[in-house]
């Protein structure tokens, strides 16, 4: 099986977001960058697929120098080799520009199955993986919580989360799977894994090598951020003080009905 996994490096979930003076990005200094949590599920599922059906796992990621650390993490978890789309021209892309680059990089791998996170926790766009499926001509199952791939590697059955329950989807491979929490428990990189990762191949591909000059990054972006805005801070409201839990509850319910008008 040829297995690919797309990953993204994002600020850690504990990051306190500070907006820069230009009002168009976060302040990067002091931010700890990690593999986006949903991408961890994707890497784990890719590795489990290889363990069951054999083959190799290729990691693909787009981003600046610092992304190499996250790529090494995936390699340390057990992925075999990596493609790093690293070039200033890739920066500032929207979902479509980024997906074009990733889809073109995947073409060099010709994967039977591609794993990705259901969304990255920075832009929260949840659109790049699906666009990659369209542009690379892959079937797709998104927001997947369970996956079974047939032994012959031709079909798969995925359970995807939907409002009020889930859907079981039958897929023809090649296909892309976007991964949701609950699919698996990602492993930690072992010490020998970390040592081995240092020697694994990380191939850099430039836009020209993918035939995408002028189509990726900011030059190819159709959607552009105009402004990044802070949240309106919620003001702490009122404490309800009462003699008994019953009296406090009655006052709360009264306020919710009469003042907030939400009950």
């Amino acid at each position, binding site marked *: 099986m040829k297995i690919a996994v797309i990953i993204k490096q994002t600020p850690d979930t504990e990051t306190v977001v500070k907006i820069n003076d230009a009002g168009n990005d976060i302040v990067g200094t002091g931010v700890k960058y990690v593999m986006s949590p949903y991408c961890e599920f994707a890497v784990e599922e890719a590795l489990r697929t290889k363990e069951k059906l054999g083959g190799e796992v290729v990691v693909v990621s787009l981003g600046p120098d610092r992304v190499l650390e996250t790529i090494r993490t995936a390699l340390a978890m057990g992925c075999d080799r990596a493609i790093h789309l690293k070039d200033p021209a890739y920066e500032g892309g929207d979902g479509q520009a980024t997906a074009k680059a990733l889809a073109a990089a995947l073409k060099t791998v010709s994967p039977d199955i591609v794993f990705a996170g259901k969304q990255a926790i920075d832009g929260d766009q949840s659109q790049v993986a699906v666009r990659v499926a369209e542009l690379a001509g892959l079937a*797709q199952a998104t927001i997947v919580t369970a996956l079974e791939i047939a032994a012959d590697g031709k079909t798969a059955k995925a359970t995807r989360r939907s409002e009020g329950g889930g859907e079981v989807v039958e897929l023809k491979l090649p296909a892309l799977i976007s991964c949701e929490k609950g699919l698996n428990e990602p492993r930690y990189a072992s010490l020998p894994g970390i040592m081995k990762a240092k020697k694994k191949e990380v191939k850099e591909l430039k836009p020209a090598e993918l035939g995408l000059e002028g189509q990726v990054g900011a030059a190819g972006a159709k959607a552009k951020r105009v402004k990044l805005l802070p949240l309106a801070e919620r003001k702490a409201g009122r404490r309800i003080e009462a003699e008994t839990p019953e009296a406090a509850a009655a006052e709360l319910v009264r306020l919710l009905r009469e003042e907030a008008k939400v009950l």
Partner: protein
Amino acid sequence: MANVLTIAEQREGSLKKVSLEALAVARQLADASGGSVTTVLVGAGVAGLAATLGSYGADKVLVVEDASLQLYTTDGYAAGVSAAISEVKPDIVLAGHTSMGRDLVPRVAARFDAGLATDCTDISLGGDGRMLATRPVYSGKAYEQVAISSDPQFATIRPNSYKARDADASRSAAVSAVSVALDASNYGAKVVEVKRSAGAKVDLTEANIIVSGGRAMKAADNFKILWELSDAIGEGCTVGASRAAVDSGFAPHNMQVGQTGKVVNPSLYLAFGISGAIQHLAGMRTSKAIVAVNKDPDAPMFQKADYGIVGDLFQIVPAVTEAVKKIKAEG
């Protein structure tokens, strides 16, 4: 002039609330600019819903029907919606940010080489008559405004961000069929089974009121007092949980609210025994009203809550349930 196409989502023949909310947005944008609103409705045996879409704001409804579209399928629905877009050539395409919207809309946007703003909480027209979309980023820790240079401009809206218009029975939409050649044997993915999760009447992302429990719930069994409160509140209410409660095994992951769970947007969010970690706040801070109940008077959740009670949730929750039953009985 902004001509808007909305993608109606129906499941088992019922329209999703967010599709009516999308129509309200579309109507606003079209009315502000002298444009019109078309809705594409995809499914099998769903044409009867066209009248409802008209009463909620559609000027025209395009129906794509095929036996293979009974259940949602990425390929079939993408083909149907793409055909409608090619026919209407809208300036803006709107859909709900639901499990279907997330699966379908980026696929169609990629097909049209177009930009997409997902999970938007506000959409307006800029001075140039183009869409200005506002959406949360960094799990709701900030907002961004996005402009799209392609035609069409795509956006999905977060459920509960807009109010649907009141149905107006005197409005009717012109209904026509779109013919699309579909070959189900070519679909790369087919839904073969739809599962309903036990208990939940309404999904967290669609709920109007959420009763949520944290680590202080102490055990899975104790969640029953939250379900009792939810039942007392009635339709549109469901139960959520913090990551701490889920990680402690008190609740399944599909109940988790927060950065690695669901992002919710109800009118009322009641947080019982939830301290208010940044991860949790990220998932519920756009709630219109927030109530915090916690033993710890310094819990950060109190800083975000409109109403707070310092006390033992095991005493407060049943008391709130009784108080709700009482006012419901009074009407």
